[in-house]
């Protein structure tokens, strides 16, 4: 039902994206018939789901509906736990990330992830930003470009002015908002195409939430962003497309403005009206 609803996004009126490739509606993430089990508990049922390049797509649904699970199977971080079994296909930027020959660390480094609780590493701000970059090849000489990389990453997340003089302070001393921005900044030096965000604002106050939302909106275009949120208002104001999940199934996926105004599915309608969830 939902595939027909995915009309091209060029018609989106507010804040049109000026980048050529976005107009093509090329897909950044393509999940096909994805099933996932935690031990014997099945968390995802035949989920097929496409995310267009350069857009912010939000995943909504009640607790336990599988939205975080779906997000976490896009960079295979789910598999940290041995009891997870996945079936189906997920393609990111055209590459099947569940193909047998795929290098897990390579997949994860190319797909950035932001977590619910800001989780900067207990090292300096500078080292946090260079962490992912330095993993690529530890023998690589990066000293000369270090400062440039840090400045660029921090500028992209609007932290440069605040932090430029305390790069060698511990990242744990920052405010939660700054920590979360730093967690986004440290993903950028490896130039990921896709950023996954698992309720990135749920630990933050409204002001910080607004700042992060603005930041996400600013990153849109250059990065494809998939964001899980509990907050329907956030999905509504800060995403281009929105998908509703329930009981491990994908119920509906539309442009955000359409989903919230004219949902196809009765369950979606009930959820966004607050009848359950």
């Amino acid at each position, binding site marked *: 039902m939902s595939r027909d609803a995915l009309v091209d996004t060029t018609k989106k009126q507010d804040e049109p994206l000026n980048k050529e490739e976005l107009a093509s509606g090329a897909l950044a993430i393509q999940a096909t018939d994805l099933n996932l089990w935690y031990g014997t508990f099945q968390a995802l049922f035949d989920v097929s789901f496409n995310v267009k390049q350069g857009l912010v797509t939000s995943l909504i649904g009640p607790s336990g509906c599988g939205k975080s699970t779906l997000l976490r199977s896009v960079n295979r*971080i789910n598999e940290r736990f*041995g009891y997870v079994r996945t079936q189906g296909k997920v393609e990111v930027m055209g590459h099947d990330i569940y193909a047998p020959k795929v290098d897990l*660390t390579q997949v*994860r*480094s190319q797909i*950035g992830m932001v*977590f619910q609780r800001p*989780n900067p*590493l*207990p090292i300096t701000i500078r080292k946090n930003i260079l962490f992912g970059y330095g993993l690529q090849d530890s023998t690589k000489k990066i000293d000369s470009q270090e400062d440039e990389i840090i400045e660029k990453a921090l500028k992209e997340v609007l932290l440069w002015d605040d932090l430029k003089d305390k790069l060698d302070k511990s990242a744990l001393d920052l405010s939660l908002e700054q920590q979360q921005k730093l967690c986004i900044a440290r993903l950028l030096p490896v130039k990921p195409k896709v950023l996954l965000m698992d309720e990135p604002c749920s630990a933050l106050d409204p002001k910080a939430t607004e700042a992060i939302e603005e930041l996400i909106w600013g990153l849109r275009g250059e990065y494809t962003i998939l964001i899980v949120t509990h907050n329907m208002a956030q999905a509504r104001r800060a995403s281009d497309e929105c998908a509703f999940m329930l009981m491990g199934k994908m119920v509906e996926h539309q442009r955000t403005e359409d989903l919230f105004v004219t949902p196809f599915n009765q369950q979606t309608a009930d959820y966004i009206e607050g009848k359950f969830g």
Partner: protein
Amino acid sequence: MSSKAQKAMAHMDRRDLSWYVDRAVQILMFVGGISAIVFIIGIFVFISKEGFSFTFGRFDIVEFFTSMNWRPTSESRETYGAFALIVGTASITGMAMLIAIPFSLGAAIYIGEFATGKTRESLKVLVELLAAIPSVVWGFIGLTIMNGLIIQLFNVPIGLNVLNAGVILGLMAAPIMTTIAEDALKAVPDRYREAAEAMGATKWQVIVKVVIPASKNGLVSAVLLGIGRAFGETMAVLMASGHSINIPGSVFDSVRALTATIAAELGETAVGSDHYGALFTLGIFLFLITFIINLTADVMVRGIRNK
């Protein structure tokens, strides 16, 4: 006020059995809680009292720390030079740490970061069992098995030496070091590992770049406690070191440790004599060193908890 309410009030004021039980248990717990402090102070006072007659009398600090002549029973002139004993203890402890640090940190990293489920649980139980082996049993192993083994393997005249005692002490100290180091690794929040893995770090990169730096203090204190353990160990050292006063030139030389000296000689001295006092002075010295080591370790462990 109605008589009913008065009755209820009277009931509330009554000190019944459970009130007394509660008080008694509180007092008992308090006594238990402070007893450790009382005992520590008591031991220190006792050792000092016995040792100070020598420490402030016959004691010659220069001789004590620089002379290698420990001749408390000399007919002509007794000398109390502890230098060789200090070097003996230090060399055995050093040898022990060479063995124990790689083994215990390796075991801790394996148990904490790699092993899962049953493997992990059974390894932890095994390590704790190892820690429970009495030191005289370790000494026995040193005296019989290790002694012969060293003589055969290295073709040396005597197998009771720094190497033997060091290996035995290393194996003795490793379990407690493993347990503490593993606790330190476990104290590193999982979200750090998850964050690093999500950025594409391999298991090994996560350990080296995230887990070890984050648990650095705990790991150092594990090592310090191991040193303290090796430093203060007596029986196994007495049995495995050869117990001969000597500045070792190689790991195949016999040495004598501070602790072993006290254990071997205290029974044969007259209470209150210079020799008796000198042994207690060795005791004060040992006490101070282990106290400093343990205190440092404790402060460092607190350091990670407060972070």
